């Protein structure tokens, strides 16, 4: 008997929670904050049903610390927050980058800075997600632009964090977090789950930070018989603190190398109507929705415009742009910030096409009409 596709009405935040469960997340620690709280509430209910655990911590500093601790114990872990909480998490985000602990942070962005506009959409945390914690570090940042992608990218985020032993950040703007849409989610059995590589050598041979051919070291969980040291200090292959310049170099460069090696896989990019495009709109998050709507009408009026949709913001998928630069006259970058990805586009463009930005920081979205008007002006 052929099974009918089943549809559900689902909110973006709900889709993140469902995605986390589908990816095998079994530990969540968090602190209530608008507009992300639904994720915590749903997982508080759902995790114990499958033997997982939820804890509400005293603040976001404690929340991220707890998920790192649980990840070291072998759990797949996730936390969800918004701008003010994300700021508090930066300290231990750096710890997780250096100690190479798999974990996922969902930041449902609100307008900032500071307490900002707590229930209004924004994309203001793009650069914070890249550089918020101190020191040189690699980071993976995904940004869904639909409810369905909120589900799929959460699974991707968990899988990338496990595969690369690196924190992954999901940046959603409030629109995607609170939007409800009809979605058809794949059954659990169809969801790909990636688990961190565990050591299989005898404990006395195990070097916790000796990179394998993939650039990532196998990670033992505490309690599995591999007694080793984890620290936020720069460390050698044994995990012990070092100030030796060669060992320090290997430590930090190794962090970057593993992400560079996975660059193509990590970069999620989609193109719409780009084959013959002379003009492009480069968008992510809720701006994709406005751009897509504008695209339709612009094509009707005879303007050859396409969409470059970024699902990954960091590492910046420069090839997505470079590929189309020879054919493009203009690129419009609409963002709910002062132009954070715009600068990246300028950098990659290196003077080839005309790059225009369209920005909004008042807690409202950029409507399709405004994009249409701007593209028409550019194409003229």
């Amino acid at each position, binding site marked *: 008997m052929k099974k009918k596709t089943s549809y559900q009405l689902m909110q973006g935040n709900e889709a993140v929670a469902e995605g986390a469960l589908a990816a095998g997340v079994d*530990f969540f*620690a968090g602190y209530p904050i608008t507009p992300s709280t639904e994720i915590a509430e749903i997982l508080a*209910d759902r995790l*114990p*049903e499958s*033997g997982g*655990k939820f*804890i509400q*911590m*005293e*603040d976001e*500093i*404690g*929340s991220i*610390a*707890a*998920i*790192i*601790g*649980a*990840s*070291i*114990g*072998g*759990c797949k*872990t996730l936390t969800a927050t918004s701008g003010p909480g994300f700021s508090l998490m930066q*300290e*231990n985000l750096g*710890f997780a980058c250096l100690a190479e602990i798999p974990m996922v942070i969902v930041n449902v962005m609100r307008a900032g800075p500071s307490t900002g506009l707590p229930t209004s959409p924004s994309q203001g945390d793009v650069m914070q997600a890249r550089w918020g914690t101190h020191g040189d570090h690699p980071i993976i940042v995904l940004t869904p632009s639909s409810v369905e992608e909120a589900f799929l990218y959460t699974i991707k985020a968990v899988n990338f964090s496990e595969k690369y032993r690196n924190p992954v950040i999901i940046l959603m703007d409030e629109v995607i977090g609170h939007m409800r849409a009809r979605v058809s989610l794949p059954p659990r059995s169809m969801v790909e789950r990636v688990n961190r590589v565990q050591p299989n050598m005898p404990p006395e041979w195990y070097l916790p930070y000796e990179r394998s051919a993939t650039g990532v070291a196998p990670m033992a*969980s*505490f*309690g*599995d*018989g591999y*007694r*080793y*040291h*984890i*620290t*936020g*200090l720069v460390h050698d292959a*044994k995990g*012990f*603190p070092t100030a030796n310049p060669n060992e320090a170099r290997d430590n930090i460069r190794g962090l970057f190398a593993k992400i560079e090696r996975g660059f193509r896989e990590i970069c999620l990019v989609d193109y719409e109507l780009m084959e013959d495009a002379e003009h492009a709109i480069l968008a992510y998050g809720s701006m994709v929705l406005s751009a897509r709507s504008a695209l339709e009408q612009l094509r009707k009026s005879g303007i050859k415009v396409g969409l470059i949709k970024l699902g990954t913001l960091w590492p910046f998928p420069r090839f997505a742009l470079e590929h189309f630069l020879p054919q493009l006259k203009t690129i419009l970058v609409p963002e709910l910030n002062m132009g954070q990805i715009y600068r990246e586009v300028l950098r990659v463009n290196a003077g080839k096409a005309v790059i225009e930005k369209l920005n909004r920081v008042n807690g409202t979205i950029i409507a399709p009409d405004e994009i249409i008007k701007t593209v028409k002006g550019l194409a003229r």
Partner: protein
Amino acid sequence: MISNSQLVNKYFRHSKKFPHIWCPGCGIGTILGNMLRAIDTLAIDKNDIAFVSGIGCTGRAPVYVDFNTLHTTHGRALPFATGLKLARPELNVLVATGDGDATAIGGNHLIHACRRNIDITTIIFNNYIYGMTGGQYSPTTPHGDKAYTCKLGNIERPFNISALVEAAGATFVGRTTSYHTLQLQNIIKKAIQHKGFSVVEVITHCPTTYGRLNRKGSAVEMLKWQKQVAVDKSRADKMSQKELEGRIITGVLVEKELPEFCEQYDTIIEQAQNQAKGKPA
């Protein structure tokens, strides 16, 4: 009892490049050594111990010993340990933290861990000063004492750590000094055995900064001071408030049984699973 050389062979990491970073005369090594002796008398497998710390002189303790060791960020050892304990309830989780780490930057985490009653053993190495950064006043520096950020005397009043954690709900509180090594071993042993959140406050000395700035003499002199001011709880109970002035009450100060967090969470899992089963398909 385990001999010193046996202790070194059994518990220290020979692959780690010694010497350690602590100054001559420091009390941290004494506390660490007696923690190991307590663990040894309990015959806990090394694989079943997770030893977690924050930042500071005390924060460096885990790297030298052969357990699952986690050196976290400043003040955050307890929330890291909380996540780890929930993920692995079968592990004995021990936390080493200094007075600044535990009660200043980590103060919020400390009181909430007490309130939560999660089965973690926290040893607070209280030497009245920020040692690693060179001697600035901490939340336990006595009123009037000197540090490099209060050369004319501290105008803040210090925390009484044991009273603080008792008020916050710790179900086991013990206090001793780095002079009273047998009592130290014994209290740490009881704290590990205690089901729930336990705190052991150990009064110790920093001859390099606090001792020098406040003319407390050598490490030996500072140890002698610990011997003089300490008064066991059984004796203190019979002493007047006036007699107890300037004294430090030692011993097991609080020991009570209350539901432990991980065990309670197991009942939540059970209830949630029963509810889910009862749900219509």
